[in-house]
């Protein structure tokens, strides 16, 4: 490999080594827990404009 490509490899893997764990960590931290740990969601009936029947 020519020198510029070796340097590019080094830069790319430095960025990946920092960026990927950071990104995965942030996503996992923000992600909601498993379904059974989540608070139940109260669904409300759709609002009606009073038109009945």
């Amino acid at each position, binding site marked *: *490999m*020519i*020198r510029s*490509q*070796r340097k*590019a*490899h*080094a830069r*790319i*893997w430095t960025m*990946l*080594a920092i*960026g*990927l*764990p950071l*990104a*995965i960590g*942030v*996503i*996992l931290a*923000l*992600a*909601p*827990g*498993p*379904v059974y740990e989540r608070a139940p969601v109260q669904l409300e009936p759709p609002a009606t404009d009073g038109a009945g029947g």
Partner: protein
Amino acid sequence: MSHAYKPVLWNRNKLTYDAFLVAGVVAYLLLYLQLAPLLSPSVAAINAPIHRMRAFSSCAFLLLTLVLAIGPLARIDTRFLPLLYNRRHFGVITAVVAITHAMAVLDWYFAFAATSKLEGLFTANTSYGQIIGFPFEVFGIFGLAVLVMMAVTSHDFWLSFLTARLWKWLHMMVYAAYASIVLHVALGPLAAGENPVMIVTVAASVTLLVTLHVLAGQREVAREHVYDAGQATDGWTLIGDLRDMTEGRALIGAGAGGERIAVFRFKGRLSALSNVCSHQGGPVGEGKVVLGQVTCPWHGYQYRLEDGCSPPPFKERIRKYRLRLDGHAIWVDPVALPLGTIVPPVAISQDEAVP
């Protein structure tokens, strides 16, 4: 037309390599499809099309991890070089498995879209302003596009047509594709928090690849320091000591701009060539000389020691350098000679006598 298409030159090694690859992929898919529902109740609960889609996606991700590990492994230990020999077929199979995953997604989630499936893929979720719930599909689409581009241009015709430099840069986009696919998985199934096995697999993949590349990089940096220490008195560079050389092998030093030069010892004579193979930039200096020709350890391209040219009918050429012996010290003029220049090898017995 100078860039004629030549069919893939199949040989026993390539056929064996591909047979193992295809068998491995089929075995993985069958095992995943059959075993995963038995081992995990949550997997057993999902329907068959989604299960198949995940079998293909996990297979493609593991293949990509392996294909990216081959490069640094071959730098760390030469026993992995046979894996590098046919790495492009590995990449093509990875792209095929990834395409199968994408087709399965389109056929399941967007089969009944009001618009076309592809339009539905891009317009179903446009929440680009949030992390959780981000349309993770776009990262998968980008990664797949790069894999397909690489698979399509993997033949040596494109290497020759685009030139080795541009082709290499294009194919280095695989790192962007890998990052994109990790984000695709992280923002999709990992963010959904459904499967802890997936978190462990992705984390292990990233850790493995980063570690291997850091280790391989450290070895390269150590070599750079050795090369930098080669003093340049009259503009020539000290490559090393004759007594450190073995028959048919090379010492590697640095030339102008830090480009590497390989000095070979063969039948009592020394020859200096560029260390960079004209095919894909492989380390020619790590190859062995047989019958006066060095063979690049990556893909088997051969060069004559006297002029750096491949034997007919091949037309590849690498640069030659002038060298001299002062006692046991090997000196090289770091200025490369024009391609095809014939430089007579330096006889060892004569120059070793110099005090």
